[in-house]
Structure formats: structure tokens, C-alpha cells
């Protein structure tokens, strides 16, 4: 025990008999308080860990559902965490840091918001058809589906 405790013990020792009973009681009370504080701190740590784990789980869940491939891009030089967070969590895709290059980002691509590694087939609308002789020759009667292979040895031939 340190000297401050001893001083406090003396100051609190107001019993007329001046025995050590009051100091023992004070000692027990202080130890009990320390245990409570330590327990409270441990509880706080556990709570913080739990909250952090839940947040990580939520972030992973959100990122797995994210449809924007740009949300994981890290703006060079920007210290703001919102640059790195998933765009699903906010409607504003711009970085709040004015000096950050991400701040100039504006969605302009038609494929913005579409997931990677997915194939898309636009809906075909019935239009005029080829002359049937030409249709047999090119392999389809629909002009919009006529896609001849024009490449040869890495260069376009037609």
C-alpha cells in the first residue's frame, strides 16, 4: 500500500478507540471498489469487442451485397474513411474531402451499379427482318443480331 492510502486511512480513522478496525474496513472497501472497477473495465472491453465484431459482420454483409465496384476503390491521399466505405451505406458517392480525387467522381457509366463478372442480355425488340435469302446466308433474320466476326490475327479486317 502506498503512502497516500496510509494518509487517507489516518484521516478516515475517526474511531475513538483508534484501533485498526476502521483501516481494515476502509481497505476492504477500496479493494472491493477496485474489483468493481476492474470488472467494469473488463465488461466494457467485452462490450466494445462485441460491438466491433457486430460492426465487422455488418460491414462484410453490406459489402457482399454491394453492387458498386467503385466502392472498394481507395482514393489516393485521402484520409477520410468515408472514401473507403461501401457506397451502399450512403447515397452520396462523393468524397467529403474536397482535395480528394474521389470528390470529383460522378457516376456517368451506364454500367455503374452493376455487379462485376455478370453477363447482361438486353431485351430484343421485334423490328424489320432481313430478306430471307440474306438471313440464311448470315445466320439470322434479325439485323440487330447479325454480328459477323471481323477480326483476324489481332486486327480488324472489315
Amino acid at each position, binding site marked *: 500500500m502506498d503512502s497516500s492510502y496510509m494518509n487517507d486511512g489516518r484521516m478516515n480513522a475517526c474511531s475513538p478507540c483508534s484501533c485498526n478496525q476502521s483501516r481494515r474496513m476502509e481497505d476492504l472497501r477500496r479493494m472491493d471498489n477496485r474489483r468493481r472497477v476492474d470488472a467494469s473495465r473488463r465488461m466494457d472491453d467485452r462490450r466494445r469487442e462485441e460491438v466491433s465484431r457486430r460492426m465487422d459482420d455488418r460491414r462484410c454483409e453490406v459489402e457482399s451485397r454491394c453492387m458498386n465496384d467503385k466502392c472498394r476503390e481507395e482514393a489516393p491521399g485521402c484520409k477520410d474513411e468515408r472514401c473507403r466505405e461501401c457506397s451502399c451505406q450512403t447515397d452520396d458517392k462523393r468524397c467529403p474531402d474536397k482535395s480528394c480525387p474521389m470528390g470529383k467522381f460522378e457516376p456517368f457509366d451506364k454500367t455503374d451499379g452493376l455487379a462485376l463478372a455478370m453477363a447482361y442480355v438486353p431485351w*430484343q425488340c*421485334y423490328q424489320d*427482318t432481313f430478306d*430471307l*435469302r440474306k*438471313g*440464311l446466308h448470315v445466320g*439470322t*433474320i*434479325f439485323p440487330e443480331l447479325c454480328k459477323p466476326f471481323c477480326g483476324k490475327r489481332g486486327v480488324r479486317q472489315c
Partner: protein
Amino acid sequence: MLDLCQPNQKELLDRIDEVSFAVYDMLLYLDTHPCDQRALDDTRKLVEERKLLLETYAKFFGPLTADSTADSCSDSWLWVLQPWPWELPDKKGRC
């Protein structure tokens, strides 16, 4: 439309091929657009034309398919007597 009174066998076969392919392509379109009325109308026209062409071919040159075996005017079984597609003199490997 071809002259049905004096059909040329090669021209008739070419036309059957063209129309049959168009019908098949239209069927593929209708598989994904079953309610497209304009496509349905065009398909019905093509199917009718194909049916007429097959009947005409069977009438003059023998049946091309089992469905048109009854369209032949011959008393014999032309299905087996007529030349096979690869035996036609001006069409090698034709089906």
C-alpha cells in the same frame, strides 16, 4: 412467289431452305417473346408459306419430310424412290 406451275427444283429447294430457316429463327424469338403479336403474325405467314412450298415440292419431286409424304401424286412410295439430298445432281451435301 415462285411459279408453282413449273417449279425449278433447285429454286424451290433454296426457297424452302430460306423459309425454313426463317421459321426456325422466328421460333427462337417467340420462345422469349411469346406475346409479340407482330412476330406471331409474321411467323404464321412464314409457316403457311413453308407448308405450301413443301406441298408443292412433294407434288412435283417427292416428299422432303415425312409430313408431306401424302402430298405426292405418285402411286408409289417416293419417299424411298426419290434421290437422297446428297444425290441431287446440282446440290452436293444438301439436307
